[in-house]
């Protein structure tokens, strides 16, 4: 797929991957074997009818291709960009063993972008709109990440009156405050939100569940069911000395300032972000890659990802890792931080690392790592970004009596996605812990189907 060159793209926040041309998409689609028992479909958490939409591309019918995807996936332009396809549909594709699975994600993106570009009127006048919104049951979705948006879209299309309550001032969840512009342009998220608005979904921003309103109050106001999709937003820190020095940030804070606050356009936008010369990022998931690549674009001299295992265990999407390396992000593997060091003004100056080595495989088959004695050394850094996962945010949960949580603090749901409170459903990261966009969407859809069965 064409992409901006590494040298050009680290100087801007524009999207890196440029998307297929019509010829490229057709050539890729024609490679599909149209398997009788396609393996790709069960590999997809929402079971998009992959070979059918690919067939439509070959036939030149992009609108039908879009409708097929939309049948089960309410945010196709987003998923085409951010799903870890190598572990899902593409990993399962029969051609994967040849090393060249069908590029399903890129085709999905191609179809969705094409539809968005070609059908502005259909989207504005709402040819997707359902018959009537004024008499259906009232449903509330709390949070506006992919889980809630999917739940809302599914129910609104079936005639429910859906309200989405979001604590921040912009809807979209991680798609807006976390994943950067160069990977998922906000314009794309806005298009997907536009589709939901066409369907009659109402957005209440700056409404904090558990503070501005309670779940009981929603029932009192006539809502029939509530979906909780508040994500797993509470950042973990490393728990090592010096972590509160100036210059040490959670990836959530760093990314929220740049993405939600648009601090890449400071001072035109008011939110500042911390500028570092030598940046270190701790962790190696998608969040770490996003933080590292963002720091490069904010003008840092060098960006180093510090990770305690080897390249093979890096959990980020492969494409993100490759893009990061092309752009000049350095990897410091088998390294673990011990403490942060500051100057007399308590500003970050360095981090003490120790070298790790691989040991024997544990019961889970994963090889253990342990520190090499005497390997301690200091790496100079003035901006450290911690991306070692998140946990559940207690703001809504603590103020909702009777809501059962599991030992890790996430919401417990049954096989119908229902919580311990009747007609209160939950899904996405707040149930599973941080996972993926598509899994959150799958959970939103599952809950919506049960809500629809009960109330529509």
């Amino acid at each position, binding site marked *: 797929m064409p992409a901006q060159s590494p040298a050009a793209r680290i100087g801007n926040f524009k999207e890196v991957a440029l998307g297929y041309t019509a010829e490229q998409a057709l050539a890729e689609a024609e490679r599909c074997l149209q398997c009788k028992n396609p393996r790709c479909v069960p590999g997809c958490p929402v079971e998009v009818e992959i070979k059918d939409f690919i067939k439509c591309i070959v036939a030149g019918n992009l609108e039908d291709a879009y409708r097929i995807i939309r049948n089960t996936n309410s945010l196709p332009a987003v998923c085409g960009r951010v799903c870890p396809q190598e572990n899902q549909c593409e990993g399962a594709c029969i051609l994967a063993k040849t090393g060249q699975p069908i590029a399903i994600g890129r085709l999905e993106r191609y179809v969705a972008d094409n539809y968005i570009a070609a059908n502005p009127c259909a989207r504005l006048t709402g040819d997707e709109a359902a018959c009537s919104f004024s008499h259906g049951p009232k449903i509330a979705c709390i949070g506006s990440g992919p889980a809630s948006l999917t739940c809302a879209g599914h129910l609104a299309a079936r005639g429910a009156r859906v309200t989405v309550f979001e604590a921040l001032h912009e809807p979209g969840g991680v798609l807006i405050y976390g994943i950067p512009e160069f990977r998922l342009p906000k314009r794309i998220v806005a298009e997907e939100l536009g589709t939901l608005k066409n369907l009659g979904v109402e957005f209440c921003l700056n409404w904090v569940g558990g503070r501005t309103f309670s779940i009981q109050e929603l029932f009192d106001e006539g809502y029939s069911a509530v979906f909780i999709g508040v994500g797993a937003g509470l950042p973990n820190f490393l728990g090592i000395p010096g972590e509160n020095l100036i210059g040490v940030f959670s990836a959530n804070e760093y990314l929220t300032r740049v993405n939600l606050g648009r601090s890449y356009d400071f001072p035109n936008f008011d*939110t500042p972000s911390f500028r570092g010369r030598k940046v270190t990022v701790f962790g190696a998931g998608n969040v770490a890659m996003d933080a590292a690549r963002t720091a490069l674009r904010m003008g840092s001299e060098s960006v180093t990802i510090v990770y305690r295992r080897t390249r093979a265990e890096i959990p980020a999407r492969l494409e993100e890792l490759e893009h990061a390396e092309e752009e000049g992000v350095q990897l410091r593997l088998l390294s673990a931080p011990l403490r942060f060091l500051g100057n007399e003004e308590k500003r970050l100056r360095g981090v003490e690392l120790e070298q790790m080595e691989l040991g024997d495989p544990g019961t889970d088959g994963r090889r253990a790592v342990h520190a090499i004695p005497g390997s301690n050394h200091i790496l100079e850094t003035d901006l450290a970004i911690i991306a070692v996962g998140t946990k559940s945010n207690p703001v809504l949960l603590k103020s909702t009596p009777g809501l059962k949580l599991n030992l890790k603090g996430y919401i417990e749901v049954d096989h119908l996605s229902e919580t311990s409170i009747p007609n209160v459903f939950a899904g996405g990261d707040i149930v599973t812990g941080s996972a993926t966009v598509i899994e959150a969407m799958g959970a939103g859809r599952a809950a919506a189907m049960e809500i629809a069965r009960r109330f529509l």
Partner: protein
Amino acid sequence: MALILDKVELEPGRISKLLIDAPQIARKAQPGNFVILRVSAKGERIPLTIADSDPEAGTITIVFLVLGKSTAVLDTLNKGDQLYDLCGPLGNPAKIEPRGTVVCVGGGTGIAALHNIAKAHKKLGNKVISILGARTEALLIMQEEFSRASDEVVISTNDGSKGVKGLVTDALALVLAEHQVGEVVAIGPVPMMRAVCDMTREAGILTTVSINSIMVDGIGMCGACRVTVGGETKFSCVDGPEFNGHLVDFDELQRRLTAFMSQERLAYDAFLNKCGLHD
């Protein structure tokens, strides 16, 4: 959007008070809670303590000091204008318990944040002695509100233009010498809160402070607001903003407040230049 129903310039160009139409927030607001607001589509999220709220009228009151670009832009708004975003009430409510005598010490605009708390202590039946401090008389705010919310008000100014001359701790020493005090609540600049805590620590008097750290989301999602309390890291937006002052690492708090200083300066200068206000 939230409509500004009234604006009072307490100290023109420096300190203003806004009465805001916010029925959802007013209905839920407790003493000690704060809001986060944005002034424009390009604005940053600004946390401000709720100084007063009226659930019947559906209004809240905030008081702010012009410190940088964002608060300067906020001060350009007038009665009839809209706030672009308003979110709340956030943070844990103040713990209001029977304590006998409570001394409420407020410095600068911290006085506004303290008001709702003093009011609640008085309502519960505690004897409230308020100490309000400022550099000079002109910067003293909300004296009238405090005379209603307290049994006794002591004024202190650094230059002696009103009340006891000196720091609020000088006034506090006098009050502590004369009264059996169950709790001290201190809200104001970090050095003031630290000085109050140093004084009450020796005397073993429970002291509560409200932390004004840098915030982004205000709902526990970023950790910008971390503060060390009793050796542990806390998020002041969801674990606070009130903490036991004897356990707070004020040194760290003071430094963390300067994290973005150079950029804040830059934005403010650019704003002043644009308005032709620069001197």
